């Protein structure tokens, strides 16, 4: 293999990154500031956050896989679902369902959030993306940015610009003991729910006719049409699945942080997009892994690496750290961790 200048630059950057990471880890371990329980807390929280990012990232990845479109409105479709679920949750508070059957109450608001997000995603696809799909160029991309603003401002107009507090049922406030460690119930619930949804999605995509059609469309849309696949139906189904997972992710996010506001989809949306790219955009396992890795990087990265390098107040650099990781991966593996490299043309 011919080693060109870019190859050396990539390897040099990778070596620098590895050296910095090693120096940071050694510094942190030698300082011995954190107890085992605290490391466990950080990992558990990183995994929880990663689970949520993964759920949201799935929508980005599936839509990109089928349409080659980056759906910037994805985080905002999630916001709409979370808002409607918030009102349902507030209503449920009056019924005392949170006290008598907390699991049922949480399941109801998760389902409401998922269904509403999925409906919004379907509407966006039908009335905003489908008309410009054939036009190519930047039209679909700009449309997605426009839809993002439209949904944000609609939420602002309808629900106000203030932060609304999500219900905090007593059931989610406690902690669970795992050996000598303690994990908040909300984190356990979020991890379990995220794992269930991801497993369900994996089964749908790999074990149903519509899932097969989705994969075929992602592989080669023209060939899929020639094989009799109704591509409009497949695309709508993809948006439906993306909306469902994003809705669940959004409600879980709101249950962790106990708040909802009209811009809440923006930041997790951007991070989930980063997670999808990190895992290899278009790849469903990649989106799951990317989300988990990004969550862990945010959760433990600043403490494990930046702290050991003697950087004061490393927490404020956590986004920088997470995206530096993303850039490093992309420099070394442009298609992401699980993405396929573009085929070389003869």
């Amino acid at each position, binding site marked *: 293999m011919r080693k060109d200048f870019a190859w050396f630059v990539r390897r040099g950057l990778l070596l620098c990154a590895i050296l910095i990471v090693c120096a940071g880890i050694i510094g942190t371990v030698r300082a011995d*500031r*954190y*107890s085992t*329980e*605290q490391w466990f*807390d*950080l990992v558990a*929280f990183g995994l929880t*956050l990663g689970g949520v990012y993964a759920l949201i990232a799935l929508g980005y990845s599936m839509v990109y896989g089928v349409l080659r479109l980056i759906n910037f409105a994805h985080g905002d479709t999630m916001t709409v679902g979370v808002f409607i679920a918030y009102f349902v949750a507030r209503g449920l508070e009056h019924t005392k369902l949170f006290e008598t059957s907390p699991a049922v109450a949480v399941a109801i608001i998760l389902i409401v959030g998922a269904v509403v997000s999925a409906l919004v995603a379907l509407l966006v696809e039908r009335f905003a993306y489908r008309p410009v799909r054939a036009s190519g160029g930047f039209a679909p991309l700009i449309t997605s940015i426009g839809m993002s603003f439209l949904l944000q401002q609609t939420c602002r107009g309808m629900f*106000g*610009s*203030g*932060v609304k*507090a999500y219900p*905090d049922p007593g059931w989610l*406030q406690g*902690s669970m003991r795992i050996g000598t460690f*303690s994990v*908040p119930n909300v984190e356990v619930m979020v991890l379990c729910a995220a794992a269930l949804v991801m497993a369900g999605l994996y089964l749908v995509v790999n074990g149903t006719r519509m899932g097969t059609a989705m994969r075929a469309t992602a592989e080669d849309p023209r060939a899929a049409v020639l094989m009799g696949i109704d591509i409009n139906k497949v695309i709508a189904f993809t948006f439906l699945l993306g909306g469902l997972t994003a809705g669940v992710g959004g409600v879980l996010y709101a249950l962790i*942080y*106990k*708040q909802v*506001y009209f*811009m809440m989809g923006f*930041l997790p949306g951007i991070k989930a997009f980063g997670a999808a790219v990190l895992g290899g955009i278009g790849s469903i396992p990649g989106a799951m892994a990317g989300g988990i890795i990004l969550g862990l990087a*945010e*959760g*433990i990265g*600043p*403490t494990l690496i930046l*702290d050991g390098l003697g950087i*004061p*107040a*490393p*927490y*404020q650099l*956590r986004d920088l750290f997470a995206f530096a990781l993303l850039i490093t991966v992309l420099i070394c593996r442009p298609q992401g961790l699980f993405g396929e490299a573009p085929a070389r043309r003869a």
Partner: protein
Amino acid sequence: MKHKLSFAGAAMAIGSLVLAGQVHAETVPPVTDPLGVLVLPKGAPLEIGGYWVLSGSDAALGVDQKRGVELAIEDWKKTLVGHPIVLDAQDSQCSAEGGQIAATKLASNPNTVVVIGPSCSSEATPAAPILWKAGIVDIGTSSTAPSLTAADRNAGFHGFARTVFSDADQGKGDGNYIFNVLKAKKVVTIHDGSPYASQLVAEFVKTYAALGGTVLSQEAIQPTDVDMHPLLTRIAAEKPDVIYMPIFVAAAGQIARQAKTTTGLETTQLIGGGSLMTGDIITAAGDAVVGMKITYPDISPEALGKGYPDFVEKYKSAYGEAPVSGYHAMAYDAAAIAFKAIEQVAKTDDEGTTYIGRQALRDAIFATDTDGISGRIKCDADGECAQFKLGVFEYVNADPTTFKIGDNPKKIYP
């Protein structure tokens, strides 16, 4: 076509001259003023600008201050020097961009006499120079960053005064209280990068360290951050006695909630600043708000002006609720000193036209020495008009409807 262009050009030139004449003329009989004279024809409204955070998680802060100004307008029977008072209130959203947009809009109105507000120092920092460039005095109502009234401040801030204390004074008070009264010897500070929080933390650290306290670390977050666990885990490893966090509602609520589930921080004392004197923090923090302390001006009757209790009654009857935040009195006083200064410098001719010299108005406001409802209002040459007397409050109930300054949060010091 040529004639049309000539006509349009002439019209524009005349319009520019008329506009410039209204704002920058030095002499408009009977008034001469180096900054320009504002002319109000008979019956024209006297426009007061205002800009506060009126939406979002900190809206209570700004709404409370807007109400303070509205009540002052009511007390003046909505009329000043023979003109109806009109308040043009802008929502500047507690951000630099919001402040810049609001100030540009207010400054572009040649009839804006004076501007009251803002709530946040981050709004005042870009806004005050824009307003002063147009010759408009800005009176801050809860923007407390020391740089705004520092002796060495930029000339763009020479038109800025405020009826709220400086964080330089609060920082000293907070440092003394935490070291000498709470006997806390190790603290961690958190700011959100806003001029208010970062400058207050800097002043606090200066005092606290000078007293012999140990500042373990000075952390920073974004106002929109929700994920505080990594930060709190790091802080827990330092084992502080107190976390000093004069930040805003959304982030403070997250820290309060997540600290309760962070190993090692379950009982660590959280102390916030005046930005958390609002019922919204109870909603944001939930049960975790109980035990949270905030430092704030002492609002006991002996510390405040004599008129404060009556003012609170008027507030309740006008808005059907107790004050929703803590800076309404400062906002009332800001409007009151502006109105008194206008009465002092405005001249009205026989035809009922009123003339207000802008430099004269600035000088009159900066010469204020009076009793306000928030206490003594005596402006110095740098526009600092308020004196700070420390009070410490503690939230004792997690029900948002129980918010009432003095009861929940309950005054615990002095």
